[in-house]
């Protein structure tokens, strides 16, 4: 078997919601991934720098407090500027304030350059399935 896939996870912005973050880290490790968890209150720069150091294959950004948009609209550009053009970028959690259609919200983040976006997912299953698919090739 080649090297374990490396996943960088964290919660972006002034967001201290830690419960799902810790559960996700445990679940990903149990599924055989190498996980670097930079935790809550992380800035876009924290993600870019930690990803370079960890040599991440996928960066999974979480946001629970609804403020993600202001933090991540240029995140893909920041990764490109740091020479990490091939990185897979996922985002999930509560990605908008108020009641907005799930499809529209997720589409907005895909347009920002994310490979996968999950607005208020009912559980983590869809993330695990997508990871398995995207990391197959």
């Amino acid at each position, binding site marked *: 078997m080649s090297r374990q896939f490396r996943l960088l996870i964290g919660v972006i912005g002034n967001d*201290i919601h830690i419960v799902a973050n810790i559960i996700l880290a*445990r679940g990903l490790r149990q599924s055989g991934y190498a996980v670097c968890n930079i935790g809550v*209150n992380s800035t876009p720069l924290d993600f870019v720098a930690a990803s370079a150091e960890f040599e991440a294959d996928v960066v999974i950004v979480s946001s629970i407090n609804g403020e993600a948009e202001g933090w991540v609209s240029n995140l893909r550009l920041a990764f490109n500027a740091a020479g990490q053009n091939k990185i897979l970028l996922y985002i999930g959690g509560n990605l908008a304030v108020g009641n907005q259609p799930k499809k529209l919200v997720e589409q907005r983040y895909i347009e920002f350059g994310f490979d996968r976006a999950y607005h208020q997912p009912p559980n983590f299953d869809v993330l695990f399935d997508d990871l398995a698919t995207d990391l197959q090739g």
Partner: protein
Amino acid sequence: MEIPDFLLKRKILRNHPLLRDISDTAALDFLAKLSPECFASVAYSRRGACPYLQPRGGFSLWEKQRDLTVALAAAGADFIPLTIDSHTRHNDYDRAARLLHKSEETGENLLNGYPLLAHGAISTRKLFEGLNKPVSLRHGTPDARILVEAALDAGITEIEGGGICYCLPYSRAYPIDRAILNWQYVDRLCAEMSSVERPIHRESFGALTATMVPPFMVVVIQVLELLLAVQQGVKSFAVSFSQTGSMTQDLATALALRRVAEKELARVGVSDVVTRLVFHQWMGAFPHDRVKAEALIAQGAVIAAICNADKVVIKTRNEAIGVPDPQSNADAVVMTRYAMQLCSGHQLLGDDVVEEMNAIAFAASYVIEAVCNLDRTPLWDCIARAVRGGHIDIPFAPHRENANRLWALRDSYRSIRVANAGSVPLPQSFLRRERDKLGSRAGDASLNRMLNDILIMVRDNGR
């Protein structure tokens, strides 16, 4: 005493721009004039059969806070809360002041609590004029020295917090050793502002992260903070815990807290400290459905009454939706008091509660002994080392020095059981019992299982 130069430290601290316009003796002078009913410690000594009630609440604007305070008092609250905004909690007094001024201009509420230092002690006193009830400072501050100086200047007689309980669950990076030392200052300050008849009351926050924290760990942290406070001369102290979802475990935790506190005070040869017990209604994710939220609040009231808590800190039916309005707070006071009165005089301590209490007290005492066992090392340093070594470990704390290796699951009766002790030094017999109680659930490491355990009141209606 571990702060030999306390008076010098205080003198330097009082030079802070936000404190230096007020005399160093302002607190002592004002407290001396305050009526005895305003002292939490005095109020506790006069409690009848029913636990006291304390709502929650903090607004940025003075007028709104005054309205809330008057409304809570009118609704029958026994203790008045003053909840502090998060910028003040993180010592960012300038930002709190800027956002307060912006709030005053626009009438909006731009802070999630009352910015005590931005308002100042003198105008804060006026919030409580004419009420004649004790006021409780609620915050979440790893370095609360300046805040508590101002709170005492304002005549607040109950100070919540502690070096562990206001650091690990509330901060990502504030060093644990400094947090404990800052709280030694606070404890000492409260002791210095106390008189024999009217001590300033300290309270620890045992709810912690309110997420899958095994009760023995709550007891460990509560009793260690009691011991730290006693070292600095505090005479009136409350340990606390929050509703877990398991009635047996809640009743057992109350008994274990009282028993271990008493035992540890006796061990260090202290007999002149009064220990109180505070119960927090469910602090986890609340049901959105208001009827279910009210049922959960009523269950909390019943538990508080049966374990004869000295005080219950209440929730409202709007908890899942947002900041509670005064009416929902008033309703929660009435509902909780009514449910508690219906229970008064009943103990309902069956064999299962006693057995659970023995297990919790045994595990907690075992860990406390292990933590305190470093020769010639002061208690604060033992505790800081224990945190860094993972001997004290709070599940789901965001703090980087917290090990996050202790892991718990719920058994089929909803009790929180240790599934993985991490580095916490627990006796084998205790761990065996926890595993037995989990039964076939011990092996279920699925993510959905963890989420169901945490979201128990939301997803499965308490199962």
